[in-house]
């Protein structure tokens, strides 16, 4: 296991370096002079010349890239020129909101999608399966941003049940400890604030999680169907075990591996989906930070956010791989 772990971690390093190269090249290849782009529009030619000197833009490209890489490794992603704050702190401030949203969306997708898939897969072509498949198609075809808007229209607008934008009723939450509002409220036993946070979270989490729910349902269904045909299931049946025991103890356990893989793969889609869903619900996460940055042409903030999103995705994939290897020993000995 240790050998596999080191091999996977070392294998990730070149990918990360190449990702940073790609992001660096985006700025280089963008039309116009980087100094021109990176400075605000009021900059004078002298400012630009000074900035070129300061940022080392007169140096050869490979030296520039090296500097970019070194400072990024040291945690310096530059300074936002709209807010004049370090990019890294700005992202770190917004990240808990995104993680909180993503966590609840995944939770929702797993809690509903997996049982629905197991149910459908255990009785292929029954009415349960048909309803499940409909949900599956519904989930994978639903654009999250439109679903979000419709949820706002019906649940917040017509029914007036849940709030449509933001993360908390102003002034209700206490001082942040972890930045995860619901966790914070639970830690401080402030139940009113916790329920308030949940209310704000429900609609965005549904909008974001539906796509994954559909995919999970479909994968679980086909995975369960496959395992149902295995010899050990027949054996279990022939020794007289009840269908329920067979399904939950024998089948689901073996069907879990593809499900975990898909959760990992779909996290990327979920991450980019969160950018859009955060915009729809005015959720103050790092996704809406990226869109704000793009709208105000805050280039250091854009590169910083893109880079951190991608690194997060790489880390998630690495974790999933390691998790996967610890569940299924065969993976460790491949290659």
């Amino acid at each position, binding site marked *: 296991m240790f050998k596999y772990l080191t091999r996977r971690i070392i294998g990730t390093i070149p990918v990360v370096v190449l990702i940073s190269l790609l992001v660096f090249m985006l700025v280089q*290849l963008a039309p116009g002079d980087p100094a021109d782009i990176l400075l605000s529009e009021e900059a004078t030619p002298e400012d630009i010349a000074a900035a070129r000197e300061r940022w080392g833009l007169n140096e050869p490209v490979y030296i520039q890239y090296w500097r970019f890489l070194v400072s990024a490794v040291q945690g310096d992603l530059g300074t936002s020129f709209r807010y004049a704050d370090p990019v890294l702190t700005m992202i770190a401030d917004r990240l808990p909101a995104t993680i909180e949203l993503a966590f609840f969306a995944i939770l929702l997708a797993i809690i509903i999608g997996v049982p629905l898939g197991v149910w459908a897969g255990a009785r292929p072509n029954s009415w349960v399966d048909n309803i499940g498949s409909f949900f599956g198609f519904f989930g994978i075809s639903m654009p999250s941003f*439109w679903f979000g808007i419709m949820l706002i*229209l019906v649940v917040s*607008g017509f029914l007036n049940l849940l709030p449509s934008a933001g993360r908390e009723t102003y002034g209700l939450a206490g001082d942040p400890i972890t930045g995860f509002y619901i966790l914070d409220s639970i830690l401080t036993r402030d139940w009113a604030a916790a329920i308030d946070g949940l209310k704000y979270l429900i609609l965005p989490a549904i909008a974001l999680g539906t796509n994954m729910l559909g995919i999970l349902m479909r*994968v679980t269904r086909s995975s369960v169907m496959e395992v149902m045909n295995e010899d050990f299931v027949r054996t279990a049946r022939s020794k007289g075990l009840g269908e329920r025991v067979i399904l939950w103890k024998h089948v689901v356990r073996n069907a879990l591996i593809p499900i975990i893989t898909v959760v990992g793969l779909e996290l990327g*889609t979920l991450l980019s989906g969160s950018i*859009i869903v955060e915009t729809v619900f005015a959720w103050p996460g790092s996704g809406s930070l990226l869109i704000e940055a*793009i709208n105000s042409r805050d280039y250091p903030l854009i590169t910083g956010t*893109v880079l951190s999103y991608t690194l997060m*995705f790489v880390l998630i994939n690495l974790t999933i791989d390691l998790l996967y290897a610890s569940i299924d020993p065969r993976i460790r000995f491949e290659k």
Partner: protein
Amino acid sequence: MKSNQEITAGSRTYLRVSFKAIRPWMKPKIVVGGVFVFLLCFMGVFAPILAPFDPNAQDLLKTLQAPGWWAGEHFLGTDHVGRDILSRIFFGARISLVIALTVVLISGLVGVALGAISGYFAGLYDFIIQKLVEVVWAFPPLLLAIAVVAFFGQGLGILIVALVLQRWIPYCRVSRGQALGLRSRDFVYAARCLGASNTRIIGVHILPNLMQATLVIGTFAMADAIIAEASLSFLGLGVPPEIPTWGSMLADGRTYISTSWWLALFPGLCIFFTVLGINMLGDGMRDIFDPRLKRSGSGTG
């Protein structure tokens, strides 16, 4: 001379044979999906004839009119500057169709070519191409496209490039896997023994064998491209504002959601049913062509 009866009998056999050939295609998934896709194409192609109004004609005296259905002037109502929603939906179908088809074609060509080279030659080519795949795939989908549009500005061309940038990868992965298997098959050896060049082997013996899988991936990729385009347009990062798209109509609709629900409802329904149709069609095709592909790539953005 054949009697009448013989001719009918003959044509009946012919009918039976052709029915057998299309029977696997007569599944609800494929038929329903096909109808939705046909509607999209129909709306897109005939948009100028179908649309009752100019999609960009503003009428500031008739802003935010509710759907008039058959009785009113504007079937699906008007938006915040008085543009006819139905007409914009027809023209939006056209843009969705054009962008999705272009993206799918280009990324398919690039992906299959690179995948075939990667799998057939193996070695150094394979290493380089697979590293590229790994790096590009490390970006969360859509994020790379968002970044490209953010830096290079809006435009139809930029949008297509931004979307292709990551969407060739599924083709490449599957083609590589298949090409790896094909390169050691007997017919490839035979071709090589007969003196066929690598180009000829790839073109004549490898590529045709990749077509079915490519077709299935392409169908799902089409759904993905439509959602991705709509997402970018929704964020204001798609095509320039003067081109009507479903995504940008939704973005406008979001602003007026509390008063005028029809702005956001109809373009969203169009995206949903189009994507649903394509997904159903793709799912049905996969069942027919290759049941083994069942578990790979069914996701959309």
